[in-house]
């Protein structure tokens, strides 16, 4: 039941038919598409909204060798495949990873590398992370999957009190640097309270770990490989709404994208826009809208690494533009935008032309039916830019 509740089978624009799982003569579980009358059809059509963003692929990178068209979950699989191939100590574990994972990130890996390297664990996040820490301490490259970032909290003690502090408290005698935790993250259109969360702010407050969020398949593979190689425990949040929606030409061979280096996705001169993950694609659209409707040139920065974050790149940009807008889905109070805002005003106070703007989720749990109103969409961001320009 829990597995069914957690299992997502949908793409951005798919018409889905779920032929009855366990459809027997006695079973009423599992539906088939029902033919509807025309009037109700149009209301239902109106209810299915388009995503709040359009994925924008980056220009293809040629410096990492031959590429292949991959979506985000396939780019994750590719990174994991590369890792298992080159590092004999690497193991991947978590709930349901053996058959391929609820988001298909580990498809085929168990067959290819063996059941001692890609295996299911019991349903217990504190166990998954604790086990991963121990494996890393004993010298293995441990890649733990938490099924949804919303379920990472039972592991909070192990992450914050143990993983993050292992090296410091032991005087560098022991560490769990070869631990990487992966979790699907962010809104997905219908995820509601427990399949939509972006918990990066909780972990940003924890010295000793790294927190990384990619915006695309190419970024995902490179950043994930960097996390795996990084000698510190890392949490890698994967925007689940991009698993299928984001498709790019991704290098087949391994490559890394550096951590703690923000990426200037497009340059501009009037406003700095900072975001990460899915929200980057919203911001790119906002930048276009600002240019067309307001004649405002926006610099879009993908923070990529939330902790430790690249203060220098953001401040350098704000010194240039004088205006900063930070946007994330997570609730605004105590969200990571607050940290960025606070640091930037300390460093760049006299350069600011307007108060730093944060466009974030409201301080409510992530709602189901109200998602279109909740998320920091392009119109809210656009309006914030307008206010900043006219300050």
């Amino acid at each position, binding site marked *: 039941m829990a597995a069914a509740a957690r*299992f997502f*089978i*949908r*793409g951005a624009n*798919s*018409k*889905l*038919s*779920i*032929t009855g*799982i366990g459809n027997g003569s006695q079973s009423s579980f599992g539906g088939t598409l029902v033919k509807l009358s025309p009037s109700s059809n149009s209301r239902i059509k109106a209810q299915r909204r388009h995503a709040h963003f359009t994925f924008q692929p980056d220009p293809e990178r040629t410096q990492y060798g031959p590429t*292949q*068209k*991959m*979506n985000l979950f*396939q780019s994750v*699989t590719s990174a994991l495949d590369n890792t298992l191939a080159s590092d004999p*100590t690497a*193991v991947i574990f978590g709930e349901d990873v*053996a058959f*391929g994972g609820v988001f*298909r990130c580990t*498809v*085929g*890996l168990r*067959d*290819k590398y063996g059941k001692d390297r890609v*295996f*299911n*664990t*019991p349903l*217990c996040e*504190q*166990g998954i*992370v*604790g*086990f991963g*820490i*121990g*494996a*890393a301490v*004993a010298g*293995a490259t441990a890649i733990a999957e938490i099924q949804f970032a919303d379920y990472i909290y039972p592991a909070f*003690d*192990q992450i914050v*009190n*143990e993983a993050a*502090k292992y*090296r*410091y*408290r*032991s*005087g*560098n*005698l022991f560490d769990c*640097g070869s631990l990487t935790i992966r979790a699907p993250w962010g809104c997905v259109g219908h995820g509601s309270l427990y399949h939509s969360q972006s918990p990066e702010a909780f972990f940003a407050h924890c010295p*000793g770990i*790294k927190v990384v969020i990619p915006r695309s398949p190419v970024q995902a593979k490179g950043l994930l490989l960097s996390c795996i190689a990084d000698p510190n425990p890392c949490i890698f949040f994967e925007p689940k709404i991009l698993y*299928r929606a984001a498709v790019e030409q991704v290098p087949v061979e391994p490559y890394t994208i550096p951590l703690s280096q923000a990426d200037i996705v497009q340059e501009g001169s009037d406003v700095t826009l900072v975001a990460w993950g899915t929200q980057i694609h919203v911001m790119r659209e906002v930048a276009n809208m600002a240019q067309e409707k307001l004649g405002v040139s926006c610099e879009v920065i993908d923070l990529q690494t939330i902790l*430790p974050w690249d203060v220098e790149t953001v401040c350098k940009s704000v010194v240039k533009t004088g205006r900063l807008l930070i946007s994330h889905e997570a609730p605004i109070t105590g969200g990571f935008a607050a940290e960025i805002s606070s640091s930037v005003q300390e460093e760049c106070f006299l350069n600011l032309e307007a108060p730093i703007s944060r466009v974030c989720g409201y301080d409510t749990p992530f709602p189901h039916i109200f998602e279109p109103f909740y998320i920091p969409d392009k119109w809210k961001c656009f309006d914030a830019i307008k206010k900043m320009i006219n300050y």
Partner: protein
Amino acid sequence: MAAVKSMNKLYGVCVHAARRTAGLKASRLLQHRAFRVGAVQRQQPFDSSLEKPQFPGASAEFVDHLEFIQPNVISGIPVYRVMDRQGNIIDPSQDPQLSKEQVLNFYQKMTLLNTMDRILYESQRQGRISFYMTNYGEEGTHIGSAAALDPEDIVFGQYREAGVLMYRGFPLDMFMAQCYANADDLGKGRQMPVHYGSKDLNFVTISSPLATQIPQAAGAAYALKRENMNRAVICYFGEGAASEGDAHAGFNFSATLECPIIFFCRNNGYAISTPTNEQYRGDGIAARGPGYGMLSIRVDGNDVFAVYNATKEARRRAVAENQPFLIEAMTYRIGHHSTSDDSSAYRSVDEVNYWDKQDHPISRLRHYMTARNWWSEDDEKSWRKQSRKTVMVAFEKAEKRLKPNIELMFTDVYQEMTPNLNKQRDAMWRHMKQYKEHYPFELFDKEPISQ
């Protein structure tokens, strides 16, 4: 079979969905591999013509009368022992027949630990160190189990296992350095006293949160299993820590993932002030093992040979068969929980005296030794004097030593220094330059650190 079929159907649905969305043509990567869920095959083929239950979740017979299983707490799992309370061997076949040298070593390690405990407890009372936890009454659990392991086996402890470290050869200087948090501390002065660790001796540094080491130990054991170098993991914890969720997680993971690990529970009767009847209602910790599919035993923790025998056999089988073992060592915490505790607030002096005088691991072993003429009153006198002297020498040395370089406050957060931390460190030094008279600089080492 049906489970497998529905899994495949689920998978098939994914593939269909994937094909319809996003129009992926080129990347067939790993999607279409015929994917067999191998491990699931272990369940028997379902056959409704049999009257036996066919559920995948449990293998059992049907029963047609309603009866609840009675937990057995009046007469629970028996306590394995080799010696009686007077140190006499009960069944000679159980005597591990260790050499005089080995037994003397056991005795000397237990008593040295006891001596060190007395001196360091006192030093806290005098304000010389900030905190301390003694091991009174539990020395047998440490030495008996440590002796049964290989030096390469990894130890995950809780906080009351100093004897394991001592048995392995951790020098008195290093115990003291950690308690004094001086510049010789391997932990670089970052943790409270008794949070020992040693990479060379395969003793993972202790942390304060309870039971967090339990799932970690399972993970380490799994990694060692893959390494295939005949190494095991032992994980110590108290009966109180066994109530934590992490304990449940660690037990379950070690069993399902077939890890070569010994879980060693020191059931000493109290978790600070909480007695066992407020900690659990079942038959202690050993009774939980079978619930996880784990081989389990309860031993007399004050009988160093019983502890030794059980640990030795558990270790042998854990590595040979890749499965976890649970040893519940019954003992008694003679001392207070720590220097922050006064246990007379919740238990009687008579109760404590009983264990101190009538059932103590050190005196029981001593009786065994004196019965064989391996240890005399003179040996005892001179050993007491000698061990006290060596402890005092280490103690005085540790007390004189400077504290670690203040730079070490900022290192090892990550493997590398970060720009952010560099900035904060520089800000700290600037502040100190201006306000130095308010800070205890004279206590701290100024030698440049090798980093």
